[in-house]
């Protein structure tokens, strides 16, 4: 398929891998921020092509995985109410809350529906004026403009039966939180190409300078990721720590300005809890005062509902890149995609799920 197959070419992948082998002289730890990149790395076996000296650390960039338990419980609470149609991206349905998940709420009669776009939820609100339509707005800067557009359109149309449970998070504050940790092993970053398509990468040079880490904006196909790794290694080997753009076919320095404008129009920056990480200041988006009527937490009286995360699994360490998924004792035994202990095993972008699906037997991975 055009624009896809050429980025999955086996021969070119081998060439890039040979070049990375040639320039690597010592061990380096590089974090791919985005869950989509983690998935591609494990699905295509990209890390198998790299020198042993290079460790890829899987970052916290899967929105499903970092959505806090508290928010899942709020979603479950709203979805179980009569007269509500609760809409969500499909991945959120299997994420366990404190006692249950959205799939089970649906099986017991809750009206839970998968949508591919928040605008479909707005359409549903127009078609069902007697129902309350709630959309579960999760994700990074990539999905924020679509969520913002849905709120904006609902306001334009004067819909009063539409609201959003918002759990949007931002990448740069998460990178900052990771880098400020004393346990941080990350020496370079592959920044998430789709996030930067929206936001550009002007936020990154100060981070690269402050922590002296190279950051390369990287795409999602095998050749993108290999080239991104090569560009990070080139910087590391030569002692540089700058921001570079591998994903030039999609990302401009200033990003997509109309999308950013829409985000600013509808949202404000707020503190957010991240599952497995904790609260990070100014790391999320919430509806601003103009659009507060669309805030489902307020509409359904759940704003003061707080839940602590119980001690069960190690997904927090996985999200921070401190352990690999298969180093968790529950991996593949107590914790599988059918019965996940943590969100990293639930989402198709989660590091544990990617390892489980593609790699539960090391022998099978061609090692």
């Amino acid at each position, binding site marked *: *398929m055009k624009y896809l197959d050429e980025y999955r*070419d086996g021969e070119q992948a081998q060439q890039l891998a040979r070049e990375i082998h040639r320039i690597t002289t010592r061990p380096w730890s590089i974090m791919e921020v985005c869950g989509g990149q983690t998935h591609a790395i494990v699905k295509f076996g990209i890390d198998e092509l790299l020198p042993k000296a290079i460790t890829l650390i899987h970052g916290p960039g899967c929105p499903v995985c970092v959505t806090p338990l508290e928010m899942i419980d709020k979603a479950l609470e709203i979805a179980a109410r009569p007269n509500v149609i609760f809409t969500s991206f499909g991945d959120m349905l299997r994420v366990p809350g404190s006692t249950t998940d959205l*799939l089970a709420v649906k099986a017991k009669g809750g009206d839970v529906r998968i949508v591919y776009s928040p605008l479909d939820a707005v359409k549903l609100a127009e078609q069902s004026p007697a129902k309350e339509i709630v959309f579960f707005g999760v994700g990074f800067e990539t999905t924020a403009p679509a969520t913002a557009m849905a709120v904006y359109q609902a306001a334009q149309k004067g819909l009063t039966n539409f609201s959003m449970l918002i759990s949007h998070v931002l990448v740069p504050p998460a990178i900052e939180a990771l880098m*400020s940790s004393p346990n941080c092993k990350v020496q370079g970053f592959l920044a998430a190409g789709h996030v930067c398509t929206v936001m550009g990468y002007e936020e990154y040079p100060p981070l690269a300078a402050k922590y002296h880490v190279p950051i390369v904006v990287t795409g999602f196909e095998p050749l993108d990721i290999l080239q991104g790794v090569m560009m990070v290694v080139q910087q590391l080997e030569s002692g540089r720590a700058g921001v570079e753009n591998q994903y030039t076919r999609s990302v401009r320095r200033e990003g997509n300005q109309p999308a950013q404008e829409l985000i600013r129009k509808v949202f404000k920056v707020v503190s957010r809890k991240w599952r*497995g990480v904790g609260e990070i200041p100014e790391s999320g988006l919430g509806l601003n005062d103009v659009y507060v009527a669309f805030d489902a937490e307020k509409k359904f009286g759940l704003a003061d509902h707080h839940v602590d995360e119980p001690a*069960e699994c190690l997904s927090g360490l996985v999200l921070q890149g401190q352990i690999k998924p298969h180093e968790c004792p529950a991996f593949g035994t107590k914790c599988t995609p059918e019965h996940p202990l943590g969100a990293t095993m639930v989402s198709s972008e989660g590091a544990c799920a990617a390892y489980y699906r593609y790699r539960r037997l090391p022998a099978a991975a061609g090692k």
Partner: protein
Amino acid sequence: MLPVSDFSLNCPVPISQYPHVLMAHGGGGKLMHQLIGKMFLTAFRNPLLETQHDSTVVELTGRKLAFTTDSYVVRPIFFPGGDIGSMAVHGTVNDLAMSGARPLYLSSAFIIEEGLPMETLWRVVCSMRDAAQRCGVQIITGDTKVVDKGKGDGLFINTAGIGIIAHEQKIAPQNVRPGDVVLVSGDLGRHGMAIMAVREGLEFESRIESDSAPVHDVVQALMKAGIEIHCLRDLTRGGLASALNEIAEASGVRLEVVEKSVPVREDVHAACEMLGLDPLHVACEGRFVAFVAANDAERALSILRGSVTGAGAAVIGKVTDNSGPLVTLKSAIGVGRILDMPSGEQLPRIC
């Protein structure tokens, strides 16, 4: 800001057992297999059921028959390339064909929701009649039930089928062995993407049509040519990945599939990429996977390619050894990884 080491590092209590049936329990993936294993196989246990093939072979007064049943709940009931009626015939005919049987008779049970337009029902019935004629089978018994408005979704159909087996080959997952070559009978994923395109209102340059079709003729052609067939499996819910994992599980073998050799049409591939689906997990309704002896692989391929639906047929891999059950895939960039069964439902109510 708190240092990361002070953060809470925990996640929630697992849901180990669902107290209610989920849509995913009918999705063709692991949850469905769990349900079948824990409930139906346990309760009804007998050697014939335990073969877990698409249809079961029984011997009656010296004649071998294949017997199967399948229910159809597809939404919408009319879709590009087919409808619930033709599918209810093709699906059951194909399940019989997977034992190498020549399909003869079908039953047809209708569960109709109050309020369904008669004209809709008639269109479905005519489509079933035409499909049965084309397949050379007769619908010889049936049942009609009507449920209250709101308690069904238009129309559900169940068909059961009987076919006759006139060969001595044992065609079942347990007969797969190292060295076998794995073929698919045509390009994959069209049915699933045709349904998704309609449901999600996706428009592509050309309309994707379902691959719903009978495959018993091409199976008979393989048998007639004396191809040593060890196993056949209809590729429906869960797609190729589910079928291969089921067979690996039943036979204990290890399979190796080469991703590049798996035939997927460009429009289907594009639609899958857009929706984040893996074509290897997407349902077909007129395709099967065949495990044949290595010596016969070339001839089998040319017979498949010569059939009406087989233009895209291909050799996709082989059985490497008995160290399974395991299915591995050589990725586009040449690295091996596991090809797993999808977990729950990918596309609900697709057949």
